[in-house]
């Protein structure tokens, strides 16, 4: 067999002379150049033993479990939440009946920003992009009829994560559950809020301190709970490339590990419960490579840099969600095809849990029909496509392994840049991430506007818009919420509530672990806004520099 270079110079050259290459961009979505062909030469020096290993073994490139989907499929976990706690509870029950295996809660913006539903800043936003949870009373309605020991629940909550987690655990305790058996995930990743999604309240330092409180408290009290889900999802949605998503997310994870070690925590106590959350976008192989590279980089960092001894500390377990940012408002049914391809990439990447977006999400919150179709898409991948029959079926692919190596190399380059800036918190304050992501999203937009990249239905194959039904949020939501809040404030023991808030203030001031105080405040029916106001008073609020 002749060398690749000779083949390209002879056969490929001749073929493209007869039939020239299409006028297309032969690059991944992260602008990594893609060659016409990959061969064994691209993997020269590649040692499958050290780069891949077996699944369930270091460095976990092939997956975190030995038998992967042959034993246990990924958790089909659809993100849901809108309107009142009653409405979202009803959607949860429907999703469980439809075959979903875990819950995932979307909160509305006032909750995400730590405001009660009757705060002036909450006007017009209550129940719009998620469910409103302002106290334990809302949490109890939200999980009515659901056993917290049997169903794991993920909660997408960040700045007020400690308070909302405490409300969830208090709800479970009041149902008689044993916290040692209650599993789930809180997102609780404040760094990516500063970097991308911007739902921060306090400045970076106290915000990270609150996260590390959960690292310390969680393993002792609720050991089955993932107290953080280090998220690249939102970084990608803000317009980053796949490589930036990978690099910035892992850099965030490493930052939390360093901070937890500074607090004197034992890495093998907390690291097994550090989980991740990545986006799955359109570039099929690049996305698969991202998941495989993520596991390998994390395992090496944890074992070789931080000295973790427990293999569970080395494993990067991750949730994935298809890319909302890739969905189009035009010809929205075409989104079904995008979501299916992205879901398949997530599965071939070895994700442990998956949310598939509904096709109508560029128009509104998903309707029940659209959300069900998205879940069915996962079920087709799981039960009909055959990709689950063998573990990591793409391993050894010349292209995929080359891309995985390339993404690892580029990620380590980003780590060096971030370290040179003085770490993640310094880089946030310097506007580094905002600039990196802003430039990438601008380039992607221009590539589409100028038709260097084609998006079906948007800048190619355009057609009149198909009308699809949309989900409306009932205008009565804000009233129902306000009434429940008023009842909570009226009926609770005012002294117990005041004492709990005092304890929270004391802990915020003396730097002690805040979680016991949050638990007390939850049980005392303190509202989310009251708790966050105490912290606003002690920590102050953060304003980011305005950069375009």
């Amino acid at each position: 067999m002749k060398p690749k270079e000779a083949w390209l110079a002879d056969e490929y050259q001749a073929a493209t002379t007869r039939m020239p290459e299409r006028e297309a961009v032969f690059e991944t979505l992260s602008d990594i150049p893609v060659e016409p062909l990959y061969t064994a030469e691209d993997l020269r020096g590649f040692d499958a033993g050290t780069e891949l290993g077996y699944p369930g073994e270091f460095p976990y490139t092939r997956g975190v479990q030995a038998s992967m989907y042959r034993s246990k499929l990924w958790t089909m976990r659809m993100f849901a939440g809108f309107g009142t706690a009653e409405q979202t509870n009803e959607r949860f029950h429907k999703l469980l009946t439809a075959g979903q295996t875990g819950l995932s809660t979307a909160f509305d913006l006032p909750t995400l920003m730590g405001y009660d539903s009757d705060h002036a800043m909450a006007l017009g936003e209550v129940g719009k992009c998620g469910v409103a949870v302002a106290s334990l009373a809302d949490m109890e309605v939200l999980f009515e009829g659901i056993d917290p020991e049997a169903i794991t629940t993920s909660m997408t909550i960040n700045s007020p994560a400690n308070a909302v987690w405490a409300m969830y655990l208090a709800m479970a305790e009041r149902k008689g559950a044993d916290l040692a058996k209650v599993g789930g995930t809180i997102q609780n990743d404040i760094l990516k809020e500063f970097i991308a999604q911007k739902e921060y309240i306090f400045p970076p330092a106290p915000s990270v301190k609150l996260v590390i409180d959960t690292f310390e408290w969680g393993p002792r009290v609720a050991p089955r709970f993932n107290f953080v889900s280090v998220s690249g999802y939102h970084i990608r949605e803000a317009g980053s490339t796949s490589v930036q998503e990978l690099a910035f997310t892992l850099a965030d994870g490493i930052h939390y590990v360093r901070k937890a070690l500074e607090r004197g925590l034992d890495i093998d106590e907390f690291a097994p419960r550090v989980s991740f959350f990545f986006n799955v976008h359109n570039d099929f192989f690049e996305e698969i490579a991202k998941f495989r590279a993520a596991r390998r980089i994390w395992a090496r960092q944890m074992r070789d840099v931080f000295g973790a001894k427990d293999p569970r500390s080395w494993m990067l377990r991750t949730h994935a969600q298809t890319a909302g940012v890739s969905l189009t408002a035009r010809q929205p049914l075409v989104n079904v095809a995008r979501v299916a391809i992205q879901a398949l990439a997530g599965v071939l990447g070895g994700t442990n849990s998956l949310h598939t977006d509904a096709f109508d999400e560029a128009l509104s919150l998903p309707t029940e029909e659209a959300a069900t179709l998205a879940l069915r898409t996962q079920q087709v991948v799981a039960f009909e496509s055959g990709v689950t029959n063998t573990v990591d079926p793409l391993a050894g692919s010349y292209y995929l392994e080359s891309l995985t190596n390339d993404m690892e190399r580029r990620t380590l380059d980003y780590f060096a840049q971030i370290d040179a800036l003085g770490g993640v918190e310094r880089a946030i304050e310097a506007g580094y991430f905002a600039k990196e992501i802003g430039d990438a999203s601008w380039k992607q937009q221009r590539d589409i506007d100028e038709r260097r990249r084609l998006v079906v239905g948007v800048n190619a194959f355009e057609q009149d818009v198909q009308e699809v039904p949309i989900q409306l949020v009932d205008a009565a939501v804000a009233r129902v919420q306000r009434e429940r809040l008023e009842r909570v404030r009226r009926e609770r023991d005012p002294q117990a509530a005041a004492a709990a808030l005092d304890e929270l203030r004391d802990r915020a001031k003396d730097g002690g672990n805040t979680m016991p105080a949050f638990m007390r405040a939850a049980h005392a029916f303190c509202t989310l806004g009251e708790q966050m106001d105490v912290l606003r008073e002690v920590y102050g609020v953060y304003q980011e520099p305005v950069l375009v």
Partner: protein
Amino acid sequence: MDRPIRVLIAKPGLDGHDRGAKVIARALRDAGMEVIYTGLRQTAEMIVNAAVQEDVDAVGLSVLSGAHMHYFREVTAALAARGATDVLLFGGGIVPDTDLPVLAGLGVGRIFTPGANTDDVVAYVRSEIARRRSQAAH
């Protein structure tokens, strides 16, 4: 010569999704317009204050949280209260078609949804401001 078109790009309310707002701000600026971006978490009053102070021709609101009707109503009312009814108010975000007639009834201009081309946004602002300036001149 006409003075350059001045545009305020604003993020009302609690929504932090700023990819679209920043991309549009950059596109309008690259097209030679003077662009002011408010940053996040603005109230209608803050937005209209900035619009009046900066003497802008147009205000673009970006809302992806589902609260767009609330904010377009508030900003429209606040512009009217300040006598700034000549300012073009347009927007973008997750806005279903069914809301478009109501927004048009409020006097809101075009709404650009996911997948919109930034060249179209530039062309729209340019032609709409030109039309308004020539009307004002007559």
